[in-house]
């Protein structure tokens, strides 16, 4: 009760003094690719007098008590960077996020079922070229699907003991791009048959921010193989909370790693 009174008081103070508070925009994060081997760098850009960028590398929302951005960061391990702008007389910004993904097992090739002709990427190694992690679905780093089933076959360079597979998926619901309903992972065993290795089900029940979502599917036990198969099932119907409800959703993927 007391809290709500304070809120109402502040509301009227703000309103009666007639000063409008605007929100800062989020900082721009500049990097070549979110995927790297060895190391990579991240530049943050926001040129507004009196405003500063604060960031975290522990996955938490940045506050003024976190790290102050001064110069480009060198990234050497899998890291989630979250950054936000703060300034006097302004509301702090929304959060910019990037997850940097390190290299995995050596991949010989990845073949994939035919994407929509508008989003083919025009590269045979598009899912293992170490390029991507930008949220613009129109650039040539993404494969885009709007059919019911996507099949992906991964050939490793040699037989390896592996425990997980990571898929970089775009979430851009304003553009009707959703996480898939399901991802099923299979591996080729000694008898040359594909057996289930892992599975992930997604529920797009409420709105998500636009982001590159790196989903790592961890297997219940380690397996030894040189071939994996992924079956991804794009959402057949956009959920009811979305303006595009009932239509077929899109699935966009840009990189796969095996660990």
């Amino acid at each position: 009760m007391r809290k709500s009174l304070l809120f109402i008081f502040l509301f009227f103070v703000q309103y009666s003094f007639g000063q409008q508070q605007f929100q800062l925009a989020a900082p721009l994060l500049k990097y070549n690719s979110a995927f790297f081997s060895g190391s990579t760098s991240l530049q943050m850009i926001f040129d507004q007098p009196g405003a500063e960028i604060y960031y975290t590398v522990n996955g938490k929302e940045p506050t003024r008590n976190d790290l102050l951005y001064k110069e480009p960061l060198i990234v050497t391990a899998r890291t989630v960077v979250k950054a936000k702008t703060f300034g006097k007389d302004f509301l702090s910004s929304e959060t910019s996020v990037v997850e940097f993904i390190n290299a995995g097992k050596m991949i010989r090739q990845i073949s994939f079922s035919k994407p929509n002709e508008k989003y083919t990427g025009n590269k045979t190694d598009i899912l293992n070229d170490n390029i991507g992690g930008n949220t613009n679905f129109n650039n040539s780093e993404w494969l885009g699907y709007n059919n019911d089933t996507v099949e992906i076959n991964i050939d490793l360079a040699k037989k390896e003991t592996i425990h997980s597979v990571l898929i970089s998926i775009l979430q851009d619901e304003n553009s009707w791009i959703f996480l898939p309903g399901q991802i099923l992972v299979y591996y080729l065993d000694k008898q040359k048959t594909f057996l289930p290795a892992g599975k992930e089900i997604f529920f797009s029940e409420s709105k998500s921010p636009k982001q590159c979502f790196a989903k790592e599917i961890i297997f219940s036990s380690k397996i030894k193989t040189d071939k994996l198969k992924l079956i991804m099932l794009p959402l057949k119907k956009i959920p009811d909370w979305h303006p595009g409800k009932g239509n077929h959703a899109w699935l966009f993927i840009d990189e796969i790693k095996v660990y």
Partner: protein
Amino acid sequence: MNRRKFIKNSSLAAGAFYLPSALQSINPEEVILGHNNKRYRIDTNWSKINAAQYPVKDCHEMVQDKLGRILLLTNETKNNVIIYDKSGKLISTWGNEYPGAHGLTLFNENGEDFLFICDNNRHQVIKTTISGRVLLTLDYPKETGQYTKPEEYIPTETIIAPNGDIYVADGYGKDFIMQYDSKGNYIRHFGGRGDADKFLLNAHGICIDDRDKEKSCLIVTSRMQNAFKRYTMEGIYIDTIPLPGAWVCRPVIKGDYLYTAVLQTNARQSEKSGFVLILDKNYKVISNIGGNLPAYDNNIPGEMYQTIKVFQYPHDVCIDDEENLYVAQWNSGQVYPYKLMPV
């Protein structure tokens, strides 16, 4: 969005951060927007009209007439043209037949004001009196040999030369610029799409730059290329003014300056990332209202982006006789225009 609604929304969005900052600054400094000698205070409640009675959809473009009145063009067919005084009070409205109302240009012909409306849905350009009586309608330009049906032609903007010639930008169609005489007879076309510099991509706006009276030229928007392109009055390509990151709408010249609304930025597409950009006589960015002031390297500005969320998708700027700005916005929650006063 009115301010009451804005405050409510921002309180919800900012959550815990809102309370401490409000406590610290019960009477915060008024925000001054822009850079250099082009800095402004803003009034987001300029429009005094009743939304239930005089609704808007997209607020596309605005002009000031010789009586000092501010005219707004919206694609709301209850009142396609809303006429305000400079204080934001309603004077009158007209127009129900422009479902795709997009471009609004005013031309003073021998002392009398006329309007040119580009309608995206009707695939036509319509010349009217200031009170809306139709005088001339230009259909799709089959004379060019580039069009086979009206649907291919989606005009977004016009500009009228001192001799009365009408230039039409087909910014959502095939990106050609058509030149007609004052009666609507086809003279020539230029622009269109292609790889060379002289071509256009999303030719959303056009104006005449007559700041150098000896060398008037056309400035045409190539919005998806984040640039303006200059042509002679006969359509010969001169050069490109790159504006990296900025989805510039129509160029508007007033005094020594060129103003334009930036619908959004490359870095944040479909994310309400617009601002208002001002260039000096040498086409150098001197102020961005709600955006960063870019550094220049070899006469090319650095990437531009939104810094303050003042606007969502600004679509046009009108500069009145007292140097105030009015900003109309597309797809921004039926918000009425904002007014900015120079400081």
